[in-house]
């Protein structure tokens, strides 16, 4: 889990915060806090699919799965276990 968390965190920091973590917490809402916009969410989806070999289904494109580091880690853990 900690490896997943670090890889996702690194992706968000590199791609959306330009290397500066700006106090990004694991609970920060990407959309509400303006860390990632709607296009960025889909870039995150593409990263998850390619990096972890999963398929994100249409109905899984919801904030509960994708809107914070914690949400992404939990979602990913469920997908990888399934």
């Amino acid at each position, binding site marked *: 889990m900690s490896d997943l968390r670090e890889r996702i965190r690194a992706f968000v920091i*590199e791609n959306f915060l330009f290397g500066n973590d700006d106090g990004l917490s694991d609970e920060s809402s990407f959309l*509400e806090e*303006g860390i990632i*916009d709607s296009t960025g969410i889909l870039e995150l989806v593409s990263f998850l699919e390619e990096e972890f070999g999963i398929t994100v289904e249409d109905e899984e494109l919801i904030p509960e799965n994708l809107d914070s580091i914690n949400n992404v880690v939990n979602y990913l853990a469920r997908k990888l276990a399934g």
Partner: protein
Amino acid sequence: MAGDLIGSLRICSHCILPETFPGIKFDDQGICNYCRKEQKALQKSVEKKAQYRRRLDDLINDIKGKAPLYDAVMAYSGGKDSSYTLKLIKEQYRLKLLAITFDNHFVSPMAWENIRTVTNTLEVDHISFRPPWPVAKKIFSLTAQRDIFPRPTLLRASAVCTSCMGMVKGVVLRTALEMKIPLVAFGWSPGQAPIHSAIMKTNPKLIRQNQMAFGNALPEDIRKELKPYFIPEVYYQEYADSFPYNIHPLAFFDYDEEEIMSEMRELGWRPPEDTDTNSTNCLLNAFANQCHIDRHGFHPYVWEIANMVRQGVVDRDEGIAKIYSPQDPDMVKYAKEKLGL
């Protein structure tokens, strides 16, 4: 020092991103980290585009002829890319289409002429939606002077364009829901939005959160005035099962600007002479660009054009000319005065 120079500004020697672009780093060949990152994706792009074309074929087979009024609604600015997208989906898939133009009070007269010509020639129903001028003036004046949206958004578009697009997306989605239209089409260029967002089922929760983020960026008085352009709260439940697919086909169809221009001319579309080098419909764009450049030190279209240069759909010299030529002072003055700034 690695990289090319435009005056004293260093730009990537492969694409055209400048040293002022957030997060940019150049290697010893002067190539930026964004180009390096894209290399892998570009190698797979032919395969990926074919995959998305198949997905669109399947999706259209599923939805065509089943909706009560229209198969698809097109967010139609009258510019080159949205006109070409309209032609593409009409001719390739024979869909029953509705085109909507969001009249932001800055649509150029030539763009209106093109809208009339193209929708008549393609036999597409067309409506336009115009907020009252005081509302448009307030939001555009605000965003011309201040960056109110999240930083990632401002890498891809000016604050003025982002505010306008927020309203466009809201109005078009609302129309799709109310008319039970299953497909919403946009004419994003292949550099504007990534291919993995080119076919996407919208869903109420994500749209709601996006709209909240957009609304929360606005001062309270403007948020209240813009409420009619958002999705009403009750719609998220009422239409929960009929949220449409968004598509932007230019991300995965062949994009050859000369060929597009030639096909558009045959249709009667004329390249406007009354807009700036990065728009074929909007008279506010040059001023919006200038405000963004003044505040951030980079052109709001540079990300899009750099992507297109990497993809080989825009020639690098042409991209440099589009991005690093000064904004037309008369166009900047026109919009600035109209907004009372």
